[in-house]
């Protein structure tokens, strides 16, 4: 069954040629010399006033990177990246020492204003009508290689939550950074993660102390502005015993003819009874309709449910980037821990998406759930690649996976590559790709009340996704809202 017209129109609205964030901010910047060498690593480390151990850590990663080769297994094709033709560090040149928000370069403030990101704490998001009236979101804004502003610092501090650029955390909380950095995604993990370990310039650091429920949403907004620059941010979030935090991430970049590299690493750690909810709206510049330009997005995201009864939930809305290579994963180490992955990946134009998740069940009675929707249009290729594995001792492991794909037009491709590995008999895994099978009970209930099967399925899945999308800030939600009502009609596994 082909896609319905309504869906076709909706997807067209977010086509690559409609990219709304493609403007460029003209500001002076401070750059590292082009190319990558030990000197570049030392330059970045020195720029950040890092302690010696951090520099050593970076150099070790750099040396290892030199021995590694770029992975080829994903279903993405791109010309060879010249790693010596990139700038690895770019920072807006400070006009003077920054003491408060008012002293930030007005051009940058203007950029974030255009993007609709609230850097002024008093501002309530335009058009957001919420019952509680003054819902707050703390934002860490990263411009090229550096964090330019972090809002609501004071209020967070009162709650005991540490939320700051990772470059500051390395200086101010070295014991925490040392304890956790690289423990979820080791420096040797993969080609892009190793590169990131060597040259990461900024990103966010969050630590939520035991028993604290973070009083507001935390958010980081990434913007690539400079030409020929790679962005390598590193995010580290730790929820200590019984803590809870919800974190949002958004990204955009100007419209350019060249391809730019983005290789981020995100590490999440939850201790006993803690929960982290991590949401992403990825909207890097996808290239134009001829496939020229766009961001290469090679991201390693992994969460470690280290404690018992802990939970990590990934939500992603992927609409941007020329190439997406991203597998947010959960290591379910603690007993009764839970991992979730909700994804909507839309590819248009010449975009190539190879994304999915890994659920690695190690502890007892661990559960995981994967809901993935891929929508391919234009001449794009959209691949879901997911791994679910239960180790010998992971008794009572439980997984449910549903992935649907929708093709719009006959020149695109949608692919599903699930790996389901069970190594003990009490593991119960279900993988399904036919929409009619999503919770028969609920469907039956809906159909009984007069909905058609199609409406019922749409209601169940969309209701589900909507629940997560509503957690997103309004700007992100606008983009995402368009997608949630996309009909599942004509979808294939």
């Amino acid at each position: 069954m082909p896609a319905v017209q309504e869906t076709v129109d909706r997807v067209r609205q977010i086509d690559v040629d409609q990219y709304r964030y493609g403007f460029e901010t003209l500001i002076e910047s401070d750059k590292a010399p082009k190319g990558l060498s030990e000197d570049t690593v030392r330059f970045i480390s020195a720029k950040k006033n890092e302690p010696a151990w951090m520099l050593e850590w970076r150099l070790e990663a750099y040396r290892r990177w030199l021995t590694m080769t770029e992975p080829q297994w994903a279903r993405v094709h791109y010309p060879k990246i010249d790693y010596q033709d990139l700038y690895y560090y770019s920072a807006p040149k400070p006009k003077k020492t920054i003491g408060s928000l008012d002293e930030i370069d007005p051009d940058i403030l203007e950029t974030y204003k255009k993007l609709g990101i609230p850097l002024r704490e008093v501002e309530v998001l335009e058009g957001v009508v919420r019952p509680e009236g003054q819902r707050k979101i703390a934002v860490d804004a990263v411009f090229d290689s550096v964090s330019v502003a972090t809002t609501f610092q004071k209020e967070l501090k009162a709650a005991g939550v540490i939320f700051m650029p990772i470059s500051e955390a390395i200086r101010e909380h070295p014991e925490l950074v040392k304890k956790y950095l690289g423990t979820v995604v080791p420096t040797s993990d993969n080609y892009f993660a190793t590169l990131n370990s060597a040259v990461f310039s900024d990103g966010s650091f969050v630590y939520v102390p035991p028993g604290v429920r973070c009083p507001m949403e935390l958010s980081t907004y990434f913007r690539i502005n400079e030409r020929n620059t790679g962005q390598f941010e590193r995010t580290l979030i730790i929820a200590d015993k019984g803590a809870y935090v919800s974190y949002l991430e958004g990204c955009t970049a100007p419209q350019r003819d060249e391809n730019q590299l983005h290789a981020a690493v995100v590490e999440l750690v939850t201790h006993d009874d803690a929960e982290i909810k991590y949401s992403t709206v990825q909207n890097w510049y996808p290239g134009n309709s001829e496939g020229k330009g766009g961001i290469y997005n090679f991201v390693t995201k992994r969460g470690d449910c280290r404690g018992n009864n802990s939970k990590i939930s990934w939500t992603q809305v992927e609409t941007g980037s020329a190439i997406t290579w991203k597998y947010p994963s959960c290591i379910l180490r603690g007993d009764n821990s839970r991992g979730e992955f909700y994804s909507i990946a839309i590819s248009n134009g010449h975009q190539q998406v190879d994304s999915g998740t890994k659920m690695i069940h190690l502890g007892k009675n661990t559960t995981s759930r994967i809901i993935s929707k891929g929508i391919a249009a234009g001449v794009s290729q959209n691949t879901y690649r997911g791994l679910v594995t239960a180790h010998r001792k992971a008794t009572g492991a439980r997984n449910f996976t549903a992935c649907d794909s929708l093709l719009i037009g006959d020149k695109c491709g949608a692919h599903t590559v699930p790996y389901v590995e069970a190594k003990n008999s009490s593991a119960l895994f279900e993988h399904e790709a036919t929409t009619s099978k999503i919770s028969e009970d609920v469907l039956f209930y809906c159909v009984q009340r007069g909905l058609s099967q199609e409406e019922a399925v749409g209601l169940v899945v969309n209701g589900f996704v909507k629940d997560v999308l509503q957690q997103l800030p309004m700007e992100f939600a606008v983009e995402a809202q368009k997608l949630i009502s996309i009909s599942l009609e004509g979808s294939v596994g």
Partner: protein
Amino acid sequence: MNVALVKNETGSALSDSFAIARDRLPGTGKVVGAREAAFAAYAQAGLPHRRIEDWKYTDLRALMREVLPLAPAPGTAELTRAATAAKLHAIEGVRRLVLVDGVFAPKLSELGGLEKGLVIRTLRETLEAGDAALQAQLLAPDNSNPMVALNSAMMTDGVVIEIADGVVLTQPLQIVHIASGNVPAAMFTRSLLRLGKDAGATLVESYVAADGAKTYQVHDSLIVSIGNNSRLDHVRLNEDSRDASNISSAVVSLGAHAHFNTFGMMSGAGVSRYQATIAFAGEGSKVETNGVNLLNGKQHADTTLFMDHAVPNGASREIFRAVVDDRAHSVFQGRIIVRPHAQKTDAKMMTRALLLSDEAEADNKPELEIFADDVTCGHGATTGALDESLLFYLRARGLSEKEAQALLIQAFVGEAIESIVNDGLRELAIAAAERWLEARG
């Protein structure tokens, strides 16, 4: 393990064996050239290992270690033992074609009174003096898969079956592979079935061991072409020795409005891999592939299917069941590709694994690659243990634990077995499953 070392060791041992065997390998001219190219391709890749995506779960370097030397041609003693085995595994009402240690055994085969339009030759005579078209078809598989390349290089004998247009065979054909297993050795066979237009046939392939046969390797391949409006029913039963390896490939192509129904059961062999490529070359064709793995001990069985929907209006169904006990390991990799313009394709795949022991392992990789928008494709995969509440229900009605399990396992594999159209063959598969369950105790 030092991969490079392993590769060199087996590589050189094998080139020696290729050199020694050369005189025994049939064919001249073009055939020799094709063999040499195939061997070069294999020698370069070596035995596939887990870092090759397609062999991720079946690391032949670890499981098989090496390719054994070519089995000597069977003598009188071997043929006598094979005859006993053939009798033991005989299926009523079929025309039996026997290969002993990879060599066609005319005395054990039934070649008399062939139906009109049915021609049976050996691979040896076809490669030595056969017509160019048959040879081309036999040499068609490319060398990208190392185990197919190895088979192309070393194929010694096999059965070449031609069924003329409009001929529907009433008697099923059975190709029996018997290993006499006097010495640890490998046999390399390739068979071909060419079904004309508006024709029909049933083909059974069996793999058995003569009494006392233990360590041996079966390297087999089957090439099938099904003409327009024709139908082929295919059943494959593997009851090789527990110390044996069986690496088999099938390459099937369907014309327009053709129908291919295939069923495979793996209960034998210590290490086995069955890799089938089924290609839709004409519109409106239909394929049903079903399989059951019944594994225990330390068995490792891998079923890898590649369904290639290259033309519009094709339909395919795959049903796969694995029952895995003890420390056995079952692998299912199913890949469906719907190529651009193959609109109105209807492809479904369902794979389920039942784990009976905490040390058993089941790996499923149901893959979809879709390039056309007006299709209905889906897949499902489940893994789990026997349902406790169902077991309890049966126990409460007086069944022993084993009996209750057996009943549930029978029901579990039943769906795949029921797809066998031929009553006699279906009964045969059911009996094989029952034997396996009884052996569990």
